[in-house]
């Protein structure tokens, strides 16, 4: 067994409904889906978020798209129009979830999701810098 962050295994998206946030966690293959079904329980997610989530966490399975959906009650500081948080709508909670580390079989220990290549952004920003210095 090895420890691996969900970041290396899964995609994610989160959003809001009132004071409830949901996070969908996506596996890329059946093996990974079975693993997260086993490891990423509602209890673990509740524990992971600590004081950020006041209420219960429910988990739903969507095997057709190899996804787990976590529904977290009391997760947004009162809900969008009421919350004092910067992230009133829970958009960043998916990223916070994949910080979680889980036990994976040794054969999966070297899994890595691709890291961003934003060389196109560097080029655009360099162009802007050139234009600015010409002035």
């Amino acid at each position, binding site marked *: 067994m090895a420890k691996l962050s969900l970041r290396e295994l899964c995609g994610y998206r989160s959003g809001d*409904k009132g004071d409830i946030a949901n996070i969908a966690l*996506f596996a890329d293959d059946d093996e990974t889906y079975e693993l997260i079904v086993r490891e990423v329980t509602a209890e673990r997610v509740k524990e992971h978020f600590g004081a950020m989530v006041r209420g219960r966490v429910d988990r739903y399975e969507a*095997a057709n*798209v190899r996804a787990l959906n976590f529904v977290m009650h009391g997760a947004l500081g009162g809900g969008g129009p009421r919350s004092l948080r*910067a992230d009133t709508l829970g958009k960043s909670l*998916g990223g916070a979830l994949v910080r979680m580390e889980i036990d994976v079989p040794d054969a999966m220990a070297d899994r890595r999701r691709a890291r961003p290549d*934003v060389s196109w952004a560097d080029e655009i920003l360099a162009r802007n810098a050139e234009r600015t210095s010409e002035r």
Partner: protein
Amino acid sequence: MRDIRIAGGQGFYGDTPTAVDALLADGVDYLCLEALAELTLAILQKDRQRDETRGYTRDLPAYLARALPFVADGRTKVITNAGGINPTAAAHAAIETARKLGVSGITVATVVGDDLLGRLPTLHTDRGQALTHLDTGEPFSAFPGSPLFASAYLGARPIVDALTQGADIVITGRVADASLFLAPLVYEHGWHWDDWDRLAAGILVGHLLECSGQSLGGNYSGDWWALPHPWDLPYPIASVAADGTAVISKPGGSGGRVSTDTLRHQLLYEVHDPTRYLSPDVVADFTSARFSDLGDDRVRITDVRGTPATDTYKLLLSAHAGWAGEARVAFSWPDAYEKAKATAAILRQRVEMAGLQVDEWLVEYWGVDALGGPTVPPTTHEAPECTLRVAWRCADQRTAGLVGRELVPLTLSAPPAGMTGAGRGGGSATELLSIWPTLIDKSVVDTEVRVVVEEVG
């Protein structure tokens, strides 16, 4: 029966109207503009409070100006819930826009009856509507103050009525997002209101289209950096057959991506139980859908299953919840985090010394754990810089403003090299609203739902 092409041209109030040009040019039968969210209703309520002729999303004319040439030609119809909490005013704005552009011979329909604010006491007391909080189970007697708006999430039926009456543009208030997209499919394909599988297919398609770019690579956790033309993300088009089979695509030559992966990200967005996605028209089982990548940015969706709709609509109420202020102070290295923390504490002491009553404080350390909270593991690594964000809630607007002022002298009298800036509301206090989701019997709502049809001569 030919396939019907519907497009998701708007995902929220504030989205970009320019994105609909590529959809219209690509050729769509229906352009659906989804403008509302819980937060949006709260914003529109504040607008209406200031001016009774407001309360709809004010970018509607900008959208219509782009779509009207296609509407006038009979190529495209427009369906939108931009009416917010004042669909009648939105329809006036739409007709005005058409007249200004010299467009005539089109029909504008307005759906009213979702606004239950005036009827609420009667519905509760005489018509047996409990209005219990949907998430917390609190009784309506615990409602904080008096409701500021009360919008029922209507379904596709009144839009189908409007289309049957010849509408080219349909403007609604709070119709459920996905139902805007289901309506033209029901109308064109002649689906029955108990054809649950097809209705579910239409709702699932609507859910995939309602957040514009989010199904084509927006907010995408996959290889987001590799999406073509991310600065000009296209919006989605669905081609839906009479049997409910759908193909999701995007305008030819555009950037972004349509794949099973980009679509499944949207499939579960803001969804609770995916086997029971509750829409006003049907309960859709999102876990029944099969996705097949056809290549070339096309994905086919089949096998969607549905079960009968419930007897209730969702109803969203809102109440005043106090006033908030916030401020940000950026700190440089070294010891940025410690400086930020000390400054937050100094502010709280000063506010207490000033005798100002704060009901709730929130302190965030941007660059450290503002977004991740307790999920961020403790570290010995020193933050290269840190921005303190403090937010507070007070009972009244004046106090919320005075709290922010206690931060100003700290510019010269607090830990070193802090740069103070304003946050939400540019430093002035903003009103907070709490929301109260509940259910209401369809039977007491439907009797008051009306479609008002007007020709632009």
